[in-house]
């Protein structure tokens, strides 16, 4: 069994949506039981009297990181197939600060607002409506924000790959840091609750100690496979960080392969949106129509063909983890336009080689455009293209 299941096509989209709903049910249930459905519990985090938010969140992150490190270390799950948010340094830093401000003003973050609304707290519902309105504000100012929003993109930056150590080792570090911070957080709670003459949040000490022990144990076993399979993961991480190498493909070869078996390729147009919408290589999708996580939606079983206005000099960094072959169209779109989409020019000298090339070219031209090439005047051979395919539709693609 290859984990994760959905990206490996163990089940289809409808069942995926059912699983998504069930995941949400579990997530919402845990959040409510953690006390996150009530704004005063959440706001207390920022006044030092109850660090519940920090404890639950950090325990969750540490447990999940250690668990994934453990499973990934033993090869039970392919970490490279997990969706990992790309790093956009400045938007994430500023967005984080703003979100923190909104959090303390509203008393909820978006997820907990949803849980509060579900528990009947109208303030939670209003906060969630506000989040939706905020989206519309963002969209309205998108022309002004776009440069900042899309700037400082560092691609997928995983801390373990950045540090050059196995995932499990960083995960174990997160657990150790979390446990240390929890003792600090509880010390702060004692100080602030005394100062505010409030009752200290009740945390059962024995339980806390057991929870810490479980997490530390998880951290230790997460490290083990990292060392047991060190060479394997080292080579894997090396290949993941290296810039993807690409081979060149010329326009005629690409056209021929697309005509023969389009299911073996996926073509992405890297040019500006307008240019791409106007004309593009048949079956190509426009990079600018996609969101920033577009590499995650590529099909790993197909070779990826990229092209721009001219020769692309290198493969975009975000494709470093794309497992398949990457091909770059030589000469970019103009080359394809010239060789395939423009009507071929009939040869003036009707040598056998010229005629064969012209026939092949006309066949491809007809296949992709539906237009017959001009017959050759002297010999007038009716070029024998295959059945004329309809012109590639705008927005076509597999």
């Amino acid at each position, binding site marked *: 069994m290859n984990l994760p299941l959905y990206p490996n096509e163990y089940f289809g989209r409808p069942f995926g949506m059912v*699983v998504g709903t069930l995941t949400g049910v*579990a997530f919402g249930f845990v*959040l409510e039981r953690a006390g996150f459905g009530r704004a005063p519990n959440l706001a207390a985090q920022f006044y030092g009297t109850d660090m519940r938010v920090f404890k639950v969140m950090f325990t969750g992150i540490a447990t999940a990181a250690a668990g994934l490190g453990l499973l990934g270390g033993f090869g039970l799950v392919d970490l490279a197939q997990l969706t990992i948010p790309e790093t956009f340094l400045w938007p994430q830093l500023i967005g984080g600060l703003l979100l923190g401000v909104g959090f303390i003003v509203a008393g909820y973050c978006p997820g907990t607002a949803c849980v509060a609304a579900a528990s009947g707290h109208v303030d939670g519902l209003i906060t969630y409506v506000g989040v939706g309105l905020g989206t519309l504000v963002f969209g309205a100012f998108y022309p002004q924000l776009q440069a900042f929003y899309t700037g400082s993109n560092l691609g997928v930056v995983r801390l373990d790959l950045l540090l050059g150590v196995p995932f499990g080792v960083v995960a174990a570090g997160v657990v150790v840091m979390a446990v240390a911070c929890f003792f600090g957080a509880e010390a702060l709670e004692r100080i602030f609750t005394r100062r505010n003459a409030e009752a200290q949040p009740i945390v059962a000490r024995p339980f806390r100690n057991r929870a810490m022990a479980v997490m530390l144990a998880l951290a230790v076993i997460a490290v083990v496979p990292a060392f047991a399979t060190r060479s394997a993961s080292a080579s894997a991480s090396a290949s993941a960080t290296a810039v993807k190498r690409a081979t060149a493909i010329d326009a005629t070869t690409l056209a021929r392969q697309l005509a023969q078996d389009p299911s073996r390729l996926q073509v992405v147009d890297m040019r500006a949106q307008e240019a791409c919408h106007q004309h593009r290589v048949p079956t190509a999708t426009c990079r600018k129509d996609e969101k920033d996580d577009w590499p995650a939606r590529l099909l790993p079983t197909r070779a990826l063909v990229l092209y721009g206005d001219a020769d692309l000099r290198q493969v975009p960094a975000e494709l470093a983890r794309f497992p398949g072959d990457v091909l770059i169209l030589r000469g970019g779109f103009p080359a394809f336009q010239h060789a395939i989409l423009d009507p071929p020019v009939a040869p003036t000298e009707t040598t056998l080689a010229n005629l064969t090339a012209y026939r092949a070219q006309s066949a491809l031209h007809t296949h992709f455009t539906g237009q017959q090439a001009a017959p050759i005047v002297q010999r007038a051979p009716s070029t024998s293209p295959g059945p004329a395919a309809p012109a590639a539709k705008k927005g076509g693609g597999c």
Partner: protein
Amino acid sequence: MPHQLEKPLWNPYFAGILLGLVLIASYLVMGTGVGSSGAANRLAIGAAHWIAPTAVEQNGYFGPFVARGAPVLDDWLVWEVLGVFLGGALSAYAAGRMKLDILRGPRATTGKRIAFALTGGIIMGVAARLARGCTSGQALSGGAVLSAGSWIFMLAVFAGGYLVAPFVRRQWK
């Protein structure tokens, strides 16, 4: 007092470990973490598209969500957040915490509380689009898979909260 009938909250560390297990399950099955603001985003775009289709289709940010008849609402995240709502309601009901009210500090008026909730929500809506996720999608899910940007985001969230907390303290006092 209904409070005496309520079940106690879970120990935060216990809740955290279960949260981690839910997250692991989500990654193993779906290959992705959980989210929350993304659904608000899609719901808002869906509603706006219904009211003003042309404006939304021509918007640089919204356009791709509705282009070519893309299903703006039939998305994994929307289903997942529907689940969050159901799970939250189930838990609150079973624990005797389901109650129609507006949570506010002893001295805050209802109007003021509503204004704060709405303002904070709008700020978070902008922030979550800018950062491409919120506490769920970025901090929790991205943090668990060791994304550098998610960790930067998470530290920034706490920094922003602590910076502004003293100024809105009276809301809860």
